[in-house]
């Protein structure tokens, strides 16, 4: 007696998903080995966007590297800017004026909102609902307007400086930010009504690509992906830097609302909820921001003492860590950038076994990877 599967032998198919594919969020190539629609194995192949940022880092000065951090995670340039500034300040022991720290936190949290908006929008677009994507872009435009006002650019901000920020807040900026928050906060329940709790959407995400808490830690997941697995770990709270200890906020974790803890839906919901927390942080920061200078005195020919520092901060896509080795000259001796997305891709092959092709798209979207950060 032969089973139908034996009587009708099938062949596995090798499919190249990417580097040009609408939902790989850039130039990611996934080598799919599929049995019909079911994925037997999915190997990610990264590196198509490698720009040798670490090598560049060894050749420019500390201050000159700032615009390159814009290009690390272009959806969260502010966070990367600030992370680099904090890393170098830690290396050189520079005291930053408090107002500058507050400004950094404000722009970083605004950028977190805009970055999560893109994550939300592109994820829903990957799921086939194109409309929420444009709603999220609409909100992000407002953040971009704010950023244009503060630093003059809409994507590559280059706003932070070693020892502070490049410029003080423009007139009326805080009021405009408040206005934006008032406008934005009611949009989150609207998103939830529009799509988050849509039955089809839930079915697509619940119980798909579950990453357990142990796996998440072992594979080095960070940021929303780690919290989606139910690990309440947030660098802003657990390894506090800047003025975050003075601000109150919750760490959102995945709760297994509609399935197992750590599925795609949990990771998605963590981002949605984090936008709320960012709004909360922003309101407090706006209320607390002191007057004062925004840039510490840093010599033009800035030479930090020799030493090695690893500084990590909470970026929208996980922990962005700078491992800086200084030999006391104007250029970093070695600069290693540890990014959330890069490490996240490591777990991709493991969680995608046995899923369907449509789920691969969901997994890529729910990890919210961004290719410049992976390839650097």
């Amino acid at each position: 007696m032969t089973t139908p599967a034996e009587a009708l032998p099938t062949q596995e198919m090798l499919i190249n998903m990417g580097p040009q594919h609408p939902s790989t969020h850039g130039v990611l190539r996934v080598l799919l080995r599929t049995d019909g629609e079911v994925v037997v194995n999915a190997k990610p192949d990264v590196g198509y966007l490698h720009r040798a940022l670490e090598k560049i880092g060894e050749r420019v000065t500390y201050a000159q590297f700032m615009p390159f951090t814009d290009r690390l995670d272009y959806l969260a340039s502010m966070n990367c800017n600030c992370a680099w500034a904090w890393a170098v300040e830690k290396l050189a022991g520079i005291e930053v004026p408090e107002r500058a720290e507050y400004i950094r936190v404000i722009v970083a949290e605004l950028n977190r909102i805009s970055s999560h908006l893109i994550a939300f929008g592109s994820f829903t677009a990957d799921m086939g609902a194109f409309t929420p994507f444009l709603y999220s872009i609409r909100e992000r435009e407002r953040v971009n307007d704010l950023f244009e006002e503060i630093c003059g650019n809409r994507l590559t901000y280059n706003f932070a400086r070693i020892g502070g920020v490049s410029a003080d807040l423009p007139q009326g900026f805080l009021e405009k930010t408040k206005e934006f928050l008032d406008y934005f906060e009611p949009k989150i329940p609207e998103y939830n009504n529009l799509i988050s709790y849509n039955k089809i959407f839930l079915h697509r995400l619940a119980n798909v690509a579950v990453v357990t808490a142990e796996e998440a830690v072992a594979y080095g997941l960070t940021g929303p992906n780690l919290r989606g697995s139910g690990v309440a770990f947030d660098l802003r709270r657990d390894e506090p830097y800047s003025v975050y200890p003075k601000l109150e906020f919750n760490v959102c974790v995945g709760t297994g609302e509609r399935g197992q803890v750590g599925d795609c839906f949990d990771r998605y919901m963590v981002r949605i909820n984090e936008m709320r927390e960012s709004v909360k942080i922003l309101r407090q920061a706006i209320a607390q921001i002191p007057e004062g200078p925004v840039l510490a005195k840093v010599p033009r020919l800035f030479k930090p003492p020799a030493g090695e520092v690893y500084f990590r901060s909470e970026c929208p896509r996980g922990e962005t860590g700078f491992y800086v080795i200084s030999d006391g000259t104007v250029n970093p001796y070695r600069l290693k950038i540890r990014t959330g997305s890069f490490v996240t891709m490591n777990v991709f092959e493991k969680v995608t076994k046995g899923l369907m092709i449509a789920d691969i798209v969901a997994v890529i979207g729910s990890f919210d990877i961004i290719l410049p950060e992976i390839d650097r």
Partner: protein
Amino acid sequence: MEALARSLVSAVPAIAGVPLWTVTLLMMVLSAAVLLAFALTFGGLGSYVLRKVAGDIQVRIGPNRVGPYGLLQFLADGAKLLLKEDIIPAKADRFLFILAPYLVFVGSFAAFVVLPFGVGLTASDLNIGVYYVMAVTSLVVVGILMAGWASNNKWALLGGMRAAAQIVSYEIPVGMAIMPAVLIAGSLSLQDIVRSQGGLLGIFGWNLFHNPFTFFSFFLYFTAAQAETNQTPFDIPEAESELVSGYNVEYSGIRYAFFFLAEFGDMFVVAALATACFLGGWHVPFFRAEALPALWGNLLSLAVFLIKAFALVLVMMWVRWTLPRLRVDQLMRMSWKYLVPLTFVNLLGVSLWLLIFKGKGIPALIASLIG
């Protein structure tokens, strides 16, 4: 058609000398040309409306550059598609690759023949009309599968396979959901089905309000039909974000345009079928179009029919721009576990209702109670 020709010959003495078969043939060609023109115009304008609706819903403007309000955008697009290079992949199965778009287009266009556009406006009032529509629209799946296979592209193949599985599965709930209307009218002819829905304060004669089962039948039909036309919650054969563009990924130029037109044609066909079977077809509310002189009656009923059908098309677009996409296994589950059993239950319910109440619907019962 022959009867029509005979009446035309008797009405216009000038053409009495022409043989009857010539007149019949000419009229056939003429009606085909009219329908084709309608289908193409609808395909073009439909794409404009689709984008405009998308724009409105997505807080954008939509097409606005060509002509007033961008109305001529579809002409520009058509010209562009016509002039584009026609690419046939080197490793493609040329014959099937070329044949596929025509099959798809024929499948969707042939269904227009029996649609009851007005009191007397139908190209051919087949006595198996509903059956015919179901049959010719199935041709689409053959074309899509061919396109997917012949493209020699794995994404296209996946799209084709998905389409085959999907359309075949959804034929069943679609057919079952239309059956109540057929039962009530006692005929498979679409004109008969429409005629059975007249009277009773305009809208209460519609099958939609006949009894609770037909009410649900309409929504079941609409859902299943949405799937049959590959509209968004069920657009997995194209699934832009998964399969890039699915079965038509290798097509370009005019061949792609055929797929595109067929999709819009399908959209109109299912909307028109829903109108004819559940929304009273060309019946004008509170008014008897049949009583008017033939020309005015036809025009009025045509307008009403188109309004109803376009409204349904709009709703389809609205759904399309709201919902995310199902996964392929969920799509199958939805058909076999939800739609098929529910349509069967509905069919049973309608049959029992007709048996118990002797073919009368709720509005008719109430009317007879009142007197």
